[in-house]
């Protein structure tokens, strides 16, 4: 499923859309991959004062080049503080981090994520990197934003492994577990649409369709039923200037392809 591309690629649209969910003057915990591009773009466009935080200890950098690693020197370049993993995780657990960006191999209807294994744990079909900081972000950040490609193999009924907590199995489940109050998945962004979560059931719900995409395509590319509200918006398209900025951030296509 490909968005009708005119002046942008799918990955660029994803990065742009993710960046637009961020609010200037807030803090964001940035993980590896497309989130790096989205955060850098937000800093260079509508959210110049967004506080970017990296798990290895880089806080508030003025990012010179796209970081290849969330622990590299660009993550604390002209930063307000070069701290440690303990510091950043402690700030998150104590409530100082507003947004968290996550990716995933699999997601379910409650926004729980898998980045650990496909197949049985002890002898997996595919061994993935593991939680990394994802479980921590999913547990601590006020609002998590998930960026991933969407198809039936990724939007599943049951995860092979629950790496990172979404709403677990429904309303009240996070709180019952002792997870911090008022946390949980906020948005899911794929190449087809953006999603939020229904307040009552905590299930994934369609928010905006990307231009040219239908509700049928969204449902065809999910193994679970996605809730569809009466009113569905259309995702904003990036301008040519936005795309130029994105491409200047990642001139080699390391993350954007």
């Amino acid at each position: 499923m490909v968005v009708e591309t005119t002046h942008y690629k799918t990955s660029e649209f994803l990065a742009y859309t993710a960046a637009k969910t961020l609010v200037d003057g807030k803090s964001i915990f940035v993980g590896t991959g497309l989130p790096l591009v989205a955060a850098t773009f937000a800093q260079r466009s509508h959210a110049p004062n967004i506080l970017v935080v990296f798990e290895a200890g880089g806080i508030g950098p003025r990012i010179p080049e796209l970081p290849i690693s969330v622990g590299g020197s660009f993550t604390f370049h002209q930063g307000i503080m070069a701290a440690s993993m303990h510091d950043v995780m402690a700030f998150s657990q104590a409530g100082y981090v507003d947004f968290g960006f996550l990716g995933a191999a699999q997601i379910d209807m409650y926004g729980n994520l898998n980045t650990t294994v496909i197949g049985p744990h002890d002898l997996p079909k595919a061994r993935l990197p593991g939680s990394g900081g994802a479980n921590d972000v999913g547990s601590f950040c006020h609002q998590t934003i998930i960026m991933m490609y969407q198809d039936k193999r990724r939007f599943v009924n049951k995860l092979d492994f629950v790496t990172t907590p979404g709403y677990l199995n429904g309303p009240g489940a996070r709180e019952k577990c002792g997870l911090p109050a008022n946390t949980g998945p906020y948005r899911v962004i794929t190449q087809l649409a953006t999603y939020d979560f229904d307040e009552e059931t905590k299930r994934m719900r369609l928010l905006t369709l990307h231009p040219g995409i239908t509700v049928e395509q969204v449902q065809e590319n999910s193994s679970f039923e996605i809730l569809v509200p009466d009113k569905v918006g259309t995702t904003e398209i990036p301008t040519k200037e936005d795309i130029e900025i994105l491409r200047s951030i990642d001139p080699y296509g390391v993350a954007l392809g």
Partner: protein
Amino acid sequence: MEILKEGKGKRLGWHTPDEHRQYVMENKSRELIDKRMSIQEAVAKFVNDGDFIAFGGFGHVRVSMIAIYEIIRQGKRDLKAAGKTTVHDLDVLISAGCVTEVEPSYAFGHELRGLSPGSRRMVESGKCRVVAEISNAAFQWRWLAASLGVPFIPARNLSGTDTFEYSSSIIVKDPFTGQPITLIPAAYPDCVFIHVDRADMYGNAQIDGITIQDVELSRAARKLIITTEEIISNDEIRREPKRTTIPYFLVDGVVEAPFGSHPGEMPGWYYFDEEHIAEWLAASKDPAATEKYFEKYVFGVKDFEEYLELVGGIRKINQLKRIEKLAEKPEYPWVKKK
């Protein structure tokens, strides 16, 4: 406290606080000893088959690659590895067959470069077993508990997930709030290598920039070896005591290791050698090519200096220095062009 749930993961590196205090009393000296040695000596003396081993830095940033190569060269076996934000370091060590068990918070991945073919193959074929799962913060707090000399640290992560189920943590009812809370057990790795900017002969070490995991890890380590870009005098350390990240009495060995993080980045000194990492990623897709890589870069060179010549010598080093200082643009040969 009421135990609500227990993770089934293997508890690597466990010692009681009194066991560790006994170890410190018997093995760690507060005397000022010249601990300088070669990497060959350090690995031979301090790394034993079967050890639980951990590496400082962040996988391919400020990592002791010089130690990784030497461990492979000396044929160390059956290591249990902390896969804490490991990237290139552990990918290479697992692919070389040195590691039989791993507790990953992040391993088998090369961040933006993609997944690690070599170490994944070892896990997917059963040659290397994942014995516990954990998250980055939780693993960091395993070192924190050890550094505090207490059996565990309470935290609010892992709850509700399979990451918890496969971890060595437990969930209890917190007596203060009445809420479930995760207790993360201390971990004392047998052998730890940390790469730093500067150190004196006694082991007082300075880390510029982000310390990542190394403050707590250096305290948790049983045997700690510092590899350093440069050796400085004790007077220079004493001129700026605030810059000391790791005090000498935690340290067992000091190795002078300029460019010791190659092909990883050393913040402020040199950038990632993306050309070399691309070569590794390509070779590690295939077992025969992986062996040839080790023949060339580990077994085929007499020491780390010869390895540096092989990967491009002064010309390459100067290029990596320029890129790190933003005087030249980086290039990424592993980018897949569509």
